[in-house]
């Protein structure tokens, strides 16, 4: 276990610096006028130019710039947006609603995909299995830019089952529809992996032993098979979080939810470079940390790794 953690931590450190460096380099490297790139098409005043130069240490060598950028990220100093607001404050404001949205989405995704995945695996080749397999294919193919507006149109506007927009302090009910949209991004893959994994485990010898022990069919599946099958599903949750973040940008924009994604979408359209880079960097870090946590969880679920 200890060696596993150390190895994962080392890997993470490398990926962490690599990923942040890529984001940083993409923003600033080889730019004739990096400031103009940050500001997009709109003219920047001389005072803004000075402030940005100082903020990003543009008069210093590239690696030094990266060093300051990292220092800022790690100390929570994200600088100010082109509109003059502190990016850190904006993040603190936007964070809670996005967090709630993501949590609801993950819970929905896991509950739906694990139950449906187990049932299709048990009755594989049956009607339920074939229908879910086809539906997951359709979901897999459904771009978020189609899913989010169509869900809003159908369930929010036409049928009126859910409010079509949500505020910062939205209730669970108001967040349900956008969360479901986000969840569908993960459901397709999680369901398929659960199904495959359960199918494989049903063939395992230990299942025969469990049945020979006179356990009920239900206990064999939900206690013995599921625990083994969930191991690959758990790793997916980490990967899916990346999709969830991407999806949140579109979904929050469509449903007008003033969260992190909404801010990024707005920063893109107002061409507020520092805001985009600041928020994106933070999301990348969160993504990496969550994936590390998921890997450790993986070890907890699989004793063969835990005692490595």
């Amino acid at each position, binding site marked *: 276990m200890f060696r596993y953690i150390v190895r994962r931590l080392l890997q993470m450190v490398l990926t962490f610096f690599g990923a942040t460096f890529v984001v940083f380099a993409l923003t600033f490297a080889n730019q004739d006028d990096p400031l103009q790139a940050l500001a997009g098409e709109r003219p920047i005043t001389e005072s803004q130019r000075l402030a940005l130069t100082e903020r990003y240490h543009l008069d210093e060598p590239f690696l030094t710039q990266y060093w300051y950028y990292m220092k800022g990220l790690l100390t929570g100093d994200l600088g100010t947006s082109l509109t003059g607001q502190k990016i850190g404050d904006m993040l603190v404001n936007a964070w809670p609603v996005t967090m709630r949205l993501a949590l609801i989405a993950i819970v929905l995704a896991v509950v739906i995909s694990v139950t449906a995945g187990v049932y299709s695996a048990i009755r594989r080749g049956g009607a339920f299995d074939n229908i879910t397999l086809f539906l997951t294919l359709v979901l897999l*193919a459904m771009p978020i830019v*189609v899913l989010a*507006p169509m869900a809003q149109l159908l369930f929010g506007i036409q049928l009126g089952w859910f409010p079509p927009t949500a505020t910062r302090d939205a209730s669970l009910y108001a967040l349900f529809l956008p969360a479901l949209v986000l969840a569908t991004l993960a459901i397709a893959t999680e369901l398929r992996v659960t199904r495959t994994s359960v199918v494989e485990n049903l063939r395992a010898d230990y299942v025969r032993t469990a049945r020979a022990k006179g356990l009920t069919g239900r206990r064999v599946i939900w206690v013995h098979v599921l625990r083994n099958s969930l191991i690959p599903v758990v790793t997916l949750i980490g990967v899916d979080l990346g999709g969830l973040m991407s999806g949140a940008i579109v979904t929050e924009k469509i449903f007008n939810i003033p969260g992190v994604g909404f801010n990024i979408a707005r920063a*893109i359209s107002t061409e507020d470079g520092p805001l985009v880079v600041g928020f994106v960097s933070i999301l990348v870090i969160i993504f990496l940390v969550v994936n590390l946590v998921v890997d450790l969880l993986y070890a907890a679920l699989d004793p063969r790794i835990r005692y490595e």
Partner: protein
Amino acid sequence: MSDPTSITAVEAPGAGVPAPTGPVKTDKPRSLAGDAWNDLRKRPVFWISIVLVAVILLMAAWPTLFTSIDPRACTLANQHKGPSGSAYFGYDFQGCDVYAKTIYGAQNSIIVGALSTLLSGVIGLVFGLAAGYYGGWLDAVLSRGIDIMLGIPFLLGAIVLSSRLAADPNSDGVLAVTMTLGLLTWTSAARVMRSAVISSKNQDYVAAGRMLGATPARLMLRHILPNSIASFIVILTILLGTNIASEATLSFLGVGLKGDAISWGISISEASRYARVAPGPLVYPSLFLAATVLAFIMLGDAIRDAFDPKLR
């Protein structure tokens, strides 16, 4: 020793077994590709996706076959008018013909999708082959590189990169989006190639070829590639679908196609603001986009199932 498995083993006709009179078909010599094709032919999903893909390609190549209306000839007077005999899908916010705009939207989707997939295919092929074949430090560096790429959620990276590449306000963004998608999506293709190379490198016939003095290039081209090409094609087919979806997403957010470029993503973005008054301009491009992505993903999925029947 458990019997369900030994039965399948017993069934394979082996030397010394009395000739089985059972329903064992051995009339034709079989190859993996032949088997897969036989399997594929029988799948309705395969034919549905083939037809869809053909229609979409036709739409992209000759939009005038489907409509004689200029999608850029818009009159504000027609704003949000409903469908009619001349405008099947009605008019959008700017009074443009939604049907014509949707038909013409296929072009950019296919161009960006195909070129970016080609780019990631080439990068993936080269990196995957090199990492798998040479191994050692090259493999280590490339593998860590892939880890780092995967450490950045795709759309976040794409937003940053695309807004960098498309900084020129006069471009329509096609090149920028193509480059963005190509540069960010090669990892899965590279991984597939790498593991295919590693597994076939150790096979006897490849080892024999190497001992006989075949050059690495020849080995890869003649022996390793043909054996891994199926999974590679599957990956790229599915990638083509997801790249088209990503183009729409970037365009939707304003870091993809822009200016007066016609894109389903832009159409959806504009129309979603007026969905309450005029759902049509939102629904039609959405349907076309979803159908296009679905067609490619279904196609890839069908091919994979045909080549890898054990997954079902």
